[in-house]
């Protein structure tokens, strides 16, 4: 068994090495990919028309590269002044391209290079190899313990029988041995064991009350994160923008959905299959969204607002079922973790881009929070290099201790991250 593992390990590290070498040789393209995904992917695809045109082959259509720079920086201005821009607008209206004045020329170049080099990934059974070996050996240990306990029990019985025999031989008179089920020591041990095991499970069960790990409620619309965040690679923050500003990540409002779904009225991807084997009609789910939004897919327009309440007639917000529920006495702030702590969404929400319908990945227990706070290092300021978050420049004691080697790194716990009033007030 160990040999197999060694072979696997070698194979795996070799694989990692190859992957790293392949990707590091292609830095600019990778950069362009990231930029594309954060900025463009919510409306554009490289090879297909989406809310906006497919970007591949831009050089054949756009007047010049310079034109592209100007267009990206300020589309509204271009529509007003430029003839080609105007034709683009006429074709794609009412959507209008968002301006990205912050994108630099070399970044735009990287994006353009990425879309030019883009080849659609071959879809097939993913060969992601071995399932992760379970590190949880508790069952094994449990069985071993029981076997050992049984052996010990048998040995003790044998020992006492042998002693009885030898005593008989030597003429020492002893009473009949008490059967083990009436032996007070055994009974005591049995009771204590039962108490300990029963107590453990009772307390464990009690602690688990109100926790909802793996909670996967049925939602009013079968919304697949896999399709959106996974296959179509829409940035998490496009919909959950609150995560970087607010304590709430925020479920997007219907108008955010409609930004794309005004154009996308059919689901044409891989068939979606629920866990219970039933298949989901993606196009029908999009129709449900239209009903909530008050959008008429035939006329490609919102319903008129005849009752003058400021929203299209028939429109109503979507009553999503909340998956992640923290108790009221817990203060959790997304922006603290995303913006300051630079955590990935997946750390707490799991591989959300692979979840068809969202389920709760962790138990969101206090122990789980605390463990992460104990281990996570903060982006501590370095007075010499100027790296890190300058806010931490005021932690004089830690700076001294780091210098003198008393500490090797500063964790969230060190700066008060495991104190009560960080989360409870």
């Amino acid at each position: 068994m160990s040999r197999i593992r060694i072979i696997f390990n070698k194979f795996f590290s070799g694989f990692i090495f190859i992957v790293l070498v392949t990707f590091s040789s292609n830095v600019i393209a990778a950069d362009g990919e990231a930029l594309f995904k954060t900025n463009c992917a919510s409306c554009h695809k490289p090879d297909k028309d989406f809310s906006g045109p497919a970007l591949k082959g831009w050089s054949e259509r756009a007047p010049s590269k310079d034109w592209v720079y100007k267009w990206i920086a300020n589309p509204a201005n271009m529509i007003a002044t430029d003839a080609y821009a105007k034709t683009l607008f006429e074709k794609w209206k009412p959507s209008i391209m968002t301006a990205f004045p912050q994108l630099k020329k070399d970044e735009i170049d990287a994006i353009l290079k990425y879309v030019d080099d883009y080849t659609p990934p071959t879809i097939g059974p993913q060969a992601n190899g071995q399932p992760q070996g379970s590190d949880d050996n508790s069952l094994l240990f449990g069985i071993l313990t029981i076997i050992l306990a049984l052996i010990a029990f048998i040995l003790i019985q044998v020992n006492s029988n042998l002693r009885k025999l030898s005593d008989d031989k030597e003429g020492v008179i002893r009473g009949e041995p008490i059967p083990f089920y009436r032996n007070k020591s055994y009974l005591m041990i049995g009771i204590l064991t039962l108490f300990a095991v029963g107590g453990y499970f009772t307390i464990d069960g009690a602690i688990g009350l109100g926790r909802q790990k793996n909670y996967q409620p049925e939602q009013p619309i079968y919304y697949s994160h896999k399709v959106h965040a996974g296959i179509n690679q829409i940035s998490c923050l496009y919909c959950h923008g609150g995560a970087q500003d607010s304590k709430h990540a925020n479920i997007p409002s219907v108008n955010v959905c409609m930004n794309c779904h005004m154009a996308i009225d059919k689901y044409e991807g891989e068939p979606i299959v629920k866990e219970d084997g039933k298949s989901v009609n993606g196009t029908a789910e999009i129709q449900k969204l239209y009903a909530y939004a008050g959008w008429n897919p035939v006329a490609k327009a919102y319903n008129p607002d005849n009752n003058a309440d400021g929203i299209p007639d028939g429109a109503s917000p979507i009553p999503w079922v909340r998956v992640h529920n923290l108790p009221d006495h817990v203060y959790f702030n997304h922006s603290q973790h995303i913006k300051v702590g630079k955590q990935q969404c997946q750390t707490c929400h799991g591989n959300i881009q692979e979840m068809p319908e969202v389920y709760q990945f962790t138990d969101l227990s206090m122990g789980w929070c605390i463990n992460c706070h104990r281990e996570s290092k903060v982006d501590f300021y370095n007075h010499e290099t100027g790296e890190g978050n300058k806010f931490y420049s005021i932690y004089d004691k830690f700076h001294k201790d780091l210098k003198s080697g008393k500490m090797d790194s500063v964790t969230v716990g060190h700066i008060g991250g495991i104190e009560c009033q960080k989360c409870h007030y």
Partner: protein
Amino acid sequence: MKRKYWQNFGELNGTEAFEESTKNEFQEDLLPLADLDDKGLLDAKTPRRDFLKYLGFSTAAAAIAASCEMPVRKSVPFLQKPDDLIPGIANYYASTYVNGGDAISIIVKQRDGRPIKIEGNEMSSITKGGTNAQAQASVLDLYDTTRLRYPMQKDGKQFKEVTSFDSFDKIIAGQMASIGSKPVVLLTSTIHSPTTLQIIAEFLAKYPNSRHVQYDAVSYSGMLLANEACYGKKAIPSYHFDNAKVIVSLDADFLGTWLSPVEFSKQYGVNRKVKGAKADLNRHFHFEGAMSLTGSNADDRYLHKPSETGVIALALLAKLGGTASAPAIADAKLVKGIDAAAAALNANKGAGLVVSGSNDVNVQIIVNAINEMIGANGKTINWGSTSNYRKGIDADMVKLVNDMNTGDVGALLLYDVNPIYSYTDSKKFAEGLNKTISISFNPTMDETTELCKYSIPSHHWLESWGDAEPKSGYISMIQPAINPLFKTRAFQTSLLKWSGNTIADYEVYFKNYWTTKLGSEDAYNIALQNGVVEPATPLISEGAFTNAALTEAATKVATTKSGAVEVVLYQKVSMGDGRHANNPWLQELPDPISKVTWDNYVMMSPAMAKTVFNIDILNNSGQADDYEVHPEKPVVKVTANGRSIELPVMIIPGNHPNVIAIAVGYGRQSNDAGKTLEYIGRSAYEAGKNAYPLVNFNGTTFQYATEVKIEKVGKTYPLAQTQVHAFTEDRPIIYETSQAKFNANPAAVLGEVNAELKTLLAPGAKDYVKDGTMYPYHEKPGIKWGMSIDLNTCTGCSACVVACIAENNVSVVGKKEVARYHDMHWLRIDRYFTGNMENPDVVFQPMLCQHCDNAPCENVCPVAATNHSSEGLNQMAYNRCIGTRYCANNCPYKVRRFNWMDYTGADSFPNNQEPLRGAEFNEVIFQMNDDLTRMVLNPDVTVRSRGVMEKCSFCVQRLQEGKLEAKKQQDPGLVRNLRTACSQACPTNAIMFGNVNDKESEVYKIRNVEQVNRNFYVLDQLHTLPNVNYLAKVRNTDRQVGHQEHHGEVHEEKEHS
């Protein structure tokens, strides 16, 4: 043993009952086991079974509650999210708090579409970011359940809904057509909104003979008329207390309720602060009959009957060399006071200010002459910009009531006034009201609206557009922070519609008006964003004074008749003129002087109490105990103008022996008495008695001080006081000195205590902080929060207390709970008397959790629910607390509060509190069970459930938010001077807050650089190491104040951090 600082008479005299009560500090009964009596658990009736029952029930309940399925929670996002709103992030909008004529520029904190907190707008040059208790509490009025929800008309005796505004407009048009040539009268409170005044003018132009009458429940007519006589303007000038070195106040409570207390507190604080090592304070003389908030802050305070105000003013004028003959004054102390005040004013020509709270025209004319003599005109009194806070002329109102009764008023439109409650002869007003078409715009079914024929409620100011011009030339804008909650319509829109204006919507009218006035829409938007439009250079000029009226005024004043007993009708800082009576935050706010909540009462001196009740509270400790220990107080009947009220007596030192004082603003009651709870509301219900009937009209103005007759009634009435709840047990907690002594030897004020601290250290030990205890010292590696409270500038105004309530979801518990010491305020203001018994000095000390670095509460918690953070916060984890209350027992500052009830509706079982309704509790404690009131809760602060301890958290939610912002911006400077709610609300900047590890922070500088000599920690000798420091009080007086000082003590500089 006589004590130096005392809170009540028992403490002063060290009486038996008092000593007993200090031993038995927590006197609560165990509520569910109330039938135990004193016999102990085992001897009680069926104790074991009861115990088992409760045990069994709670176990079963816990099991059922816990094992229920998790509820399915919905998360419903917007349909179309507004661009400027991110759920979870608060937005701040500049607006203006308006309350009758009061106007304070404020910032509204709006969270997820709900206004939840009011803060001062620092861009206003008038209030400079200050607020008061009423402004802080006004956000709760928005969610008042008694607000009217739709327009109504009377059908027989009952109101019934008018389904649409259009049909309401039609009905009114019909009514207006029917009145013929009779005048339409618009009766409002003082209005200084430029747009509203213009709309009113346009409205009046449509209806010939019509007029606009402004009516103030507490009027300033006397000043307006006196100024008309002296300066030719029926207006009130601006006052500049910040330019005054000497302030003389004759009955004017300018720090509490007079005219514009926030503005004046801000100005007063400027020269009340000790800047640097030497003190150079203003000198404040105060003449009054009953102890007021401002009087309690004065350097020298003199007592007189209210009828003598004019004589004192005249004597002062004569002393200053004015053309007046000094009248004879019998009271030698008073004469001395007048001499001292005159001398100080003479020595500070051009830097003195005399103000008077009298509503007597003649007194105000003399005061004007005095101010002219001392060169105040143009210096401390500014006619360049007049104050518009009060504009009501009493005679106009009296004439209106007469006209109504003679049938000479066609229609009466009432906006923001409640004369049935506040007019002295309300019966006559009611009779007149019956003879006219009456339309009320008031937001609630108050006493007057109840008698009107039509009701079309206007918006709350937080739902309105609008403007205010508190001082001419200084505009403050109002913008809505929430959509109207109910079917209400702006008062101005109604007037526009009824006058047939082409622009029939106030919002549009308002925008057009200001866009035109300011030049562009951009300028309009900037004005809305800033909240204020102010002139580039301050408008300052002198008024043209004429002395013509003086002689006549002097003659009249000299002949004023004096009564044997006189009453002063005053306003409390909490209740004002009574329009906030249904605001439980204000009702439960203890009066700064008497510390009584939920009631008004007759304030009486010990000397008068002795003559009326034969209670010798100063010398007979048995009688003092009888009076003080029980909440039940004897009742007197007070009669004036042929009208009388019965009120309990509160014995307060510092009142003139022939003067009683009664607060107005209480005793709201529907005409149909059984409807009070429904119409006026659960907070106003049974809170005090209405004192307005005692107001006397002297032919020109309303007089708020008059001769009365008092009689013993032989009844008692309970008063819920907070000050008797915690005692100092003779520990030194306040230090004060006089300016002369302080400047001679600044270190002496704390010499004694600093010397004592040294004796507490073991031989050889040096550092009190580290070596004064056997516990290890915990470093504060990054931030260390600290607060500094300046006893010199704290006026006791209590804005901080209400700010704390609003910010931290602090519960209201009702009178009955306060009476048994269950009040929940995290921040209280302790009031101590000291010195001369008849006219004591007062010290206010805001007391909150001191966040001790060596905290006595933390050591005794069996479950570690309270512990210390690495930033110096004494943390409280509510969900960990099991309610042993050991911590409260062990806290030397008595700042921990226990949730005896589910005051916030946090219980997991809905309606769990229902069985408690009834005699045991006031209705108001159930307020948080309704969804409307709950909207005011701050979502960043947990609502505490029954059975847990709570206390000041240093507004940790603000600190966390501030730190997050600092981390995002990567700038530690952003947390340097963060503001807690109390610190932000303070109109005198007495409370400072910040990171004391940062040497640039204000608190660090105060403690270690600027005010080392005044810096002390309360009960420092216990080695609690508080994170709140206080600055010793310095009074600018020649009298002996404060502790005996050891001269020549060398103060050792010690670093407090």
